Structure formats: C-alpha cells, structure tokens
C-alpha cells in the first residue's frame, strides 16, 4: 500500500456504475452492494436498465446503470446525488453526468471514449478533453487495456478477456473503500464452478483492480464508511422480488398450505416466478400459464383445491386478470395477486418504475367488487407485505392484491430476516364437522368477521358448488332475488371493510404525532419521503411522515391521524391517485406531489415541496 494515502471518513457514499448493457454493470453493482452490506453498511440500490435485451452497444439507449448508496447511518434511498460515477464508456458518462454531485468523482474507462464510442453516444467532442468535466474530479484509467494486460498469459480470447473488465472496476473500488474481496471471490467460485479458466481470469482481474489502487497514486485518499448502527440482529441483503417470493413461501409454510404460483412472464414481475421455480423443495408448485387469465384462474382453481393460490404480474397483465379476480371475490376464496407496477399506460415503459396502478387495484373491476389492497414500501418490506396479504387472504377468505413496483422489485437493502417462530401464525378457516348442520354444509354461512368456511374437494360431506352468479346467503345457491343481491353486495363490502379491524392502526413513521405538515405516502416512495422528512426535522421544521401499508381498507384511525396536521402532502410516482382516494374518503384537501418519469423521487424533490407548502 502506498504510504502517503489517508482514509477519509464518510457517513454515506453514492456510487453509480454506468456502462453498456454488455458491460456487466448489474452484476458489478450487486457484488459491490453485497460486499458493503456484509461489511455492515446500510445500503439501498437502484438498478436501471434498458427495455431491450441487448440495446445497441455503445449507444445512449444501451446504457445500463446501477446506483447504490451505502452508509454508516440508516440509508433509505439509493442517493439523490452521485459521489462516484463509474463510466465504462462515453454513453454511460453522458447519460448520467447530471446525476453527479458538483465536485464529485468520475472514474472513466478511457477505452470507452474512442471515436466509435463517441459517435455512438452522439457526442461531437470528447468529454474527457472538452472541458465538460471541469467541475468534477476525473480519474482516467484504461480499464480495458489493463484487464487485457492482466490476462495476457491466459488462454482467453481478447473478447473473453475484455468481458471481465467489470471485475477490474470492482477490485479497484474495493481498494478505494477498503473492502475485502472474499465475498466476490466466493461468488465467482460458485458462478464459474464448471469453468475454471473463467474463474481464474475473473479473480485475477479483480485482484489486479485492487492492486492497481494500491500500487498507483491515482487516488491520494481512500474512504472509510463505518458499519451502520442498525438494530441488532442478523442481516442479509435482499431484492424486492426475492423478498416477495420468500414471503409467499413463508406464508404457505406457516399456514400449512402448499404454495401454488400461477403466472405469465412479464417485466418486472418475472423474477418472482424464477425465484419460486427454484424452490420446489418447499412444496412450491409453479405454473407458467399460457396467459395472465389462465394464470389467475389456475391460482383460483388451486385455492379451490386447498392450496394457497397466488398469481403475479405487472399492469397490463393485471388488467387481464380483473374478470377472474371478480369471480374470486364472488367465490370468497383466498387468492393473492402481486402487481409489480411499471411505467404505463399500455406497454408503457416496461423496465421503469411507477405507482400508477392504485386506481386499477381499488376500482378496476366490473360490479361492486371490493378488493383488499396492500403496498410494500421497501425491497425487504415486500416480505412483510406479501405475508400479510396471504394472511388476510386466507383468514378472511378473500382475494388480496399487493402492490410492489419496478424500483422495489430490483432494488435491494439489508434485511434483518425474521426467525420462523416469530412469524405471525396463519389459520385457514377450514370447515369442520361441527360446521355441518343436519348433515348439510352451508358454504356461505359466515362467522362474526363475515368469513365463510373453506371446504376443499376430498372432504366428505362438504360437497358443494360455487360460481360467479349471485348466490343466496348461507346456501350459496344461485339466487336472482333482489333483496338477497343487495344483502350480498353489502355483505361482501362489509367483509372487506372488516379487515380494518384486523390490521394495525396507522402510526406516525417519523416526527411528531401532530403538527404542521404530514407527508403521507404509500409504496416505494417510503425511503425518499423518510429521508426528506428527517432532513426537514433536522433543519428545525415541523414535519411528520405517515406511510400507508393498507390501502383498502384504510386503517381505522387514518382520518384522525390526518386531521392532526394542518397540511397533508401526498407524493406519488403517478399523476395523483392516493390523493384522490384521501379526498374522497375524508373530504380533505391534501396537496399532491407527482413525478411520472419512471424513476423514483429524489429526496430533494420532496424536501422542496415540503418547503413550498410549509
């Protein structure tokens, strides 16, 4: 290690890896995240990639980015402003430069700034010499060349060798932030278990990157981000989609049911299917259906058969499921529907994030078809949200939709994973012999919570028929009786409303219990709002945060909570949806703050709005 290098302590650092889709930026980011998390930092990530599988190399539309913030304090967002941008080529630099803090550092791979790359990035001048980067600290390294250099004695082709240049970056950053290579080496060992020559090459380049830092003087400072003071416990890093998948398995396990997941691939929900497909040893049955209608219908069929039926998709696919969800509401069977929202309308921005399916979730069916709706607020919280959705679906015999989004799905954070024995038990209301009256089973007889009993084919003496026509109270027989219809519509509504008695009261997340401004959010805006509110409070402002998990029904005390503040601000990544529900429910003139750009809020955008209305 060069002698004259010092360590500067930092509370948090935001790094953005940007390069071509083929440059392995997602993998690099994930590895860097995991290493920091394992070290003990709090971390929040934001992968951002093009809709194309391999968008044209070197072009602006082909840029793949992975941003993360890691820190020694609690971290709730991937960072507004980037401290270190790693740009593997000109396009990566140009499409992300605006995110870099003035005075921030830019690490460029000079090979990515040749004439061809500049042309592809539609850049007339070379930004490395044009003065464009004057306000930044620029570190130029010919990463491509150094990588090839490191591998020149191996049997790898130039092309193959070049492909590991992301390991050079990673090694260099490990040096810069004083991190160990162990976790990444272990990962590489697993990944290339059957390709020893690639394993060797990747490790070699990783170490070369590290040693380059050590050996040269490109940086005269290194940075030290200490372990975060997180609540005690055991942690792992997890993405939203993985947490969603695991949450389903846990809920099925704790309710003693098999998990059935019927789905049709769609970005950004597909990873849930992938994750679950791997977990068959948990009695997980995955069914890749022919379309979304078959996916949801198969899940209902599975629930009818006594499994926990779950289906998942994104906006356009959810649209297709609505008719069948209406049936599930009518049948009163457990069903969990996961919507990993993406930019819309229509095909929209398939790989980008948005919160614009709330209306669809709450209102998007024919007839009076109330649906319970729950939202996840962070990647790890997807676990809780889907677990809770399953609990409500099973114990209340009703479909429940959970709203995640592209940002949560692919983003990750440290998760203090629970102990199995601490998971809330889930009790399926299976019909018992005692539910027979005069040997007759009344499938639509209800308990005090208005929940009917679950009788599953195979149970002798409980044979019964269900269907989508209006049914007579108690017997479930088809009924066209006017009064019965009104009664059943109201009963189904009351049953969903009743869920409010089975969920926690709304708490204030940050700040005082009453005061001037309450920032009310739902879903993945949690981290940005939390950070904004915390910073405002630090600046001495009277601001609080409440964040909704339960969107339908709303918590019983919500009106009371809202009324304790002079103003309510509702930031959403849509054109205003929750704000309309709140206006409707409570005749409350909440202030909307909307961002519809396929990317999450910056903390500052929320802070500015708070200040504007303060």
């Amino acid at each position: 290690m060069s002698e004259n290098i010092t360590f500067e302590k930092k509370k948090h650092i935001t790094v953005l890896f940007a390069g071509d889709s083929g440059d392995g930026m997602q993998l690099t980011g994930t590895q860097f995240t995991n290493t920091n998390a394992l070290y003990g930092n709090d971390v929040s990530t934001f992968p951002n990639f093009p809709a194309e599988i391999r968008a044209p190399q070197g072009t602006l539309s082909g840029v793949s980015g992975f941003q993360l913030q890691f820190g020694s304090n609690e971290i709730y967002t991937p960072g507004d402003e980037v401290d270190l941008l790693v740009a593997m080529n000109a396009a990566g630099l140009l499409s992300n430069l605006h995110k870099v803090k003035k005075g921030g550092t830019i690490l460029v791979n000079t090979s990515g700034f040749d004439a061809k790359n500049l042309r592809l990035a539609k850049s007339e001048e070379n930004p490395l010499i044009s003065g464009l980067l004057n306000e930044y600290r620029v570190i130029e390294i010919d990463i491509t060349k150094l990588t090839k250099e490191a591998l020149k004695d191996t049997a790898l082709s130039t092309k193959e060798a070049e492909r590991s240049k992301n390991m050079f970056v990673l090694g260099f950053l490990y040096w810069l932030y004083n991190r160990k290579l162990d976790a990444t080496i272990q990962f590489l060992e697993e990944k290339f278990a059957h390709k020893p020559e690639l394993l060797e090459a990747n490790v070699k380049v990783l170490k070369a990157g590290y040693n380059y830092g050590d050996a040269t003087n490109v940086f005269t400072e290194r940075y030290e981000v200490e372990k975060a003071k997180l609540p005690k416990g055991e942690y792992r890093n997890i993405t939203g989609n993985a947490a969603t998948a695991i949450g389903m398995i846990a809920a099925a396990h704790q309710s003693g049911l098999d998990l059935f997941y019927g789905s049709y691939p769609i970005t950004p929900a597909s990873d849930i299917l992938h994750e679950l497909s791997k977990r068959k040893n948990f009695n997980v049955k995955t069914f890749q259906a022919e379309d979304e209608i078959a996916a949801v219908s198969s899940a209902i069929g599975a629930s009818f058969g006594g499994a926990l039926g779950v289906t998942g998709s994104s906006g356009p696919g959810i649209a297709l499921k609505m008719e069948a969800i209406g049936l599930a509401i009518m049948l009163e069977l457990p069903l969990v529907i996961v919507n990993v929202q993406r930019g819309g309308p229509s095909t929209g921005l398939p790989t980008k994030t948005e919160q614009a399916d709330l209306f669809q979730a709450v209102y998007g069916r024919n007839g009076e078809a109330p649906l319970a709706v729950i939202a996840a607020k962070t990647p790890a919280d997807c676990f809780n949200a889907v677990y809770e959705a399953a609990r409500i679906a099973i114990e209340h015999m009703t479909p429940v939709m959970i709203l995640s989004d592209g940002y949560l799905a692919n983003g990750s954070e440290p998760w203090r994973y629970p102990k199995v024995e601490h998971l809330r038990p889930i009790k399926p209301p299976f019909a018992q012999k005692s539910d027979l009256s005069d040997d007759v089973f009344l499938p639509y007889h209800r308990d005090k919570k208005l929940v009917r009993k679950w009788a599953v084919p195979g149970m002798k003496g409980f044979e019964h028929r269900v269907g989508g026509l209006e049914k007579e109270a108690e017997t479930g027989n088809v009924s066209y009786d006017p009064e019965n219809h009104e009664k059943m519509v109201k009963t189904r509504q009351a049953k969903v409303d009743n869920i409010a008695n089975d969920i926690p009261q709304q708490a204030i997340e940050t700040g005082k219990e009453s005061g001037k401004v309450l920032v009310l959010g739902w879903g993945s805006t949690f981290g940005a709002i939390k950070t904004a509110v915390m910073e405002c409070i630090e600046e001495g402002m009277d601001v609080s945060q409440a964040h909704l998990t339960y969107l339908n029904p709303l918590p019983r005390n919500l009106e009371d909570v809202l009324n304790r503040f002079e103003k309510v601000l509702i930031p959403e990544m849509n054109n205003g949806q929750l704000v309309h529900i709140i206006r409707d429910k409570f005749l409350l003139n909440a202030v909307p703050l909307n961002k519809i750009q396929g990317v999450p809020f910056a903390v500052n955008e929320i802070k500015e709005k708070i200040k504007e209305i303060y």
Partner: protein
Amino acid sequence: MSTPVTNTENKIQYTAKDFTSDQEVKWCPGCGDYSILKQVQTILPQIGVPRENIVFISGIGCSSRFPYYMNTYGMHSIHGRAPAFVTGLRIANPELNVWLITGDGDALSIGGNHLIHILRRNVNTNILLFNNEIYGLTKGQYSPTSPEGLKTKSSPYGVVDHPFNPVRLAMGAEATFIARTVDRDPKFLREILLEANNHKGSSFVEIYQNCIVFNDKAFEVYTDKTTKKKEVLMMKHGEPLIFGEDDEKAVVLDGYTPRIVEWEKEGLSKDDLWIHDMFDKYKANILIDFFDDPKTPHHFPRPFGIFYKKERAVYEEMVNKQVEEVKKQFGEGDLQKLLKGEHTWTVE
C-alpha cells in the same frame, strides 16, 4: 382422465341419484343437455371414486350450468376459462377426479387458447364439449362450429366464418384422447364417458347436443332413425369401419386415400376393410377429416367413437414429480435457511 380408486375398503355403493343435487334443473324442456346429465350421473357409480373426490368445473353457457346439478364438488367459473381452473386444481391435488364441462362457444371461441393448452399439457381430466353449434345461453348467436350460411341472430344473412372441426383442432393441439358422440345415443354416450374416464390424460369428448330452441335438428341426420345408419360411421377399435342401411358399406384405404366401398358387392371380406385402430395417428388424421356436409353428394359418413388414444405423461404428475425430485435432491425446504439466504452478517 383416470383416477386411482381410493377408499376401496369401505367402498360406497352409489346410484345415479346420489349424484343428483337438490337444485332444480333449468334447461329448456327437450334440451339435449338432459340426456348428457343423466348419462354422467349413471356412469359415476361405476368409476369407483368417492363422491367427495369428484369435481365438476365448467365455464359459462347453458351447458356450463351442469355442475349445479351434480351432488359433487363443483365450480361454475367464468366464460372460457374452465381449463385453467382445472389445471390449477389438478396441480394442487392430483388425486381428484375432475370433469370439465364446456360448450362450443365456451371451449372454442373465448376459451380456445386454454383448451389447446390443456390438451398439449395433457392434464388428467375429462373434457365434455357440448357442441350444439350455437350460443344457447345468450339466445342464439352463431358459434365457431356453426356451419357456413347458418342464419342466426348475429348472422341474419348467413355465417361467413369457416367453422372449426373440434376433433381436428384437438389433434392439432396434441390431444391424447379424442372422441365424438351424441346426446341421443345414451348407451354409446355412457360407453365413451367410461372410456374417457379410463384414459389417463386429457380426454377430449365432443358431444353433439341438440339445442331445441335455437338450433333444433342440427344433428338430426346422425340421430334420426331414417338417416342415422347411412350417415354415422361407428368406430370401434379392432373392428372394420362399416356403415349403411344394411351395413353394406365400408371404408377402405387405397394407400393413404380413403374410399367408400359396397364391400360385399365388391367381393371384399371384413378383413379387407379398414380395421379401426385408435392408436394409429395417421389413420386418425384421415378419419378426423371425414367432416363433409351431409347434404353434399358422395360425402363420407360422420365418424363417432374414439378417433385416437395415446399414452403420454400427465402434466400435473410431472409437476408434482419434479417437486419430489427437487426435495430428494436438496432435501425438504428449510424455511429458516431460506430466510437466512447465502450471505449474512450480524449487527451487535
């Protein structure tokens, strides 16, 4: 489908009445659905499955009211999607005996995709397609099996759509059991129902069913005494394909070209005729194409019976087998391990 006979020790002796629910049957008087209901209720005591293990799942249509009338488990689902409900149910519980009830609109119009997919996957279920060549429940629009030219409420000047031949579509979709029968031949219907139930996999049974209100007599030539014998070709495995007023006609194959012969007149013996082999796909393809309008001259008779049968792995068994294999390979899932993941750290 075929289902393992469970509960054999204290096996209950059912009668057809045990399968009759307490709900009033609400089809039009004279509807062909009644006969089908009755034959199903009649054969169920013979299949040796406890009532609680039997499930009827339907879509929407007159025919799809069927489950309400069965004293078993049942679901009247939504239009066209019954195959998907069945698939989910069978994966969740492969022990059940599941019947899928559908109509020509339900199965072939809105539900066409689910039908072809359940067939290719070979989910173990008995698919009874009530083909009346019309939409009954919505009061008389044409369906994908209505013949060209038919005047209906939605085709006042005649249908211009070329119809599906359901058994050909089933073949195109890789079905493993393909049969055709008709409401007005109860004995034969029962036979086919039992065969369908004995087949392991998706048993596709097209049942010509008379809609007395909106498409009366669509299949009269195949059921009326005066025409039946010359228009119906009964396919029986291992037997020659004979038909005609006095069984005087038969079908033979010239190479791969079928031809109608007056066999005795032409000096042929039964052995010279086409002997039906339901396991022969090439021949099944030819028989399936006997789909002429019976009003055209020199037409082939319409075949009834089992066109084709083939053993092939059953989807939900494969799904469940894979679950077992993965368990064997990795051990029964340990939830705490899953929650923990691969890399953890401790904050003190």
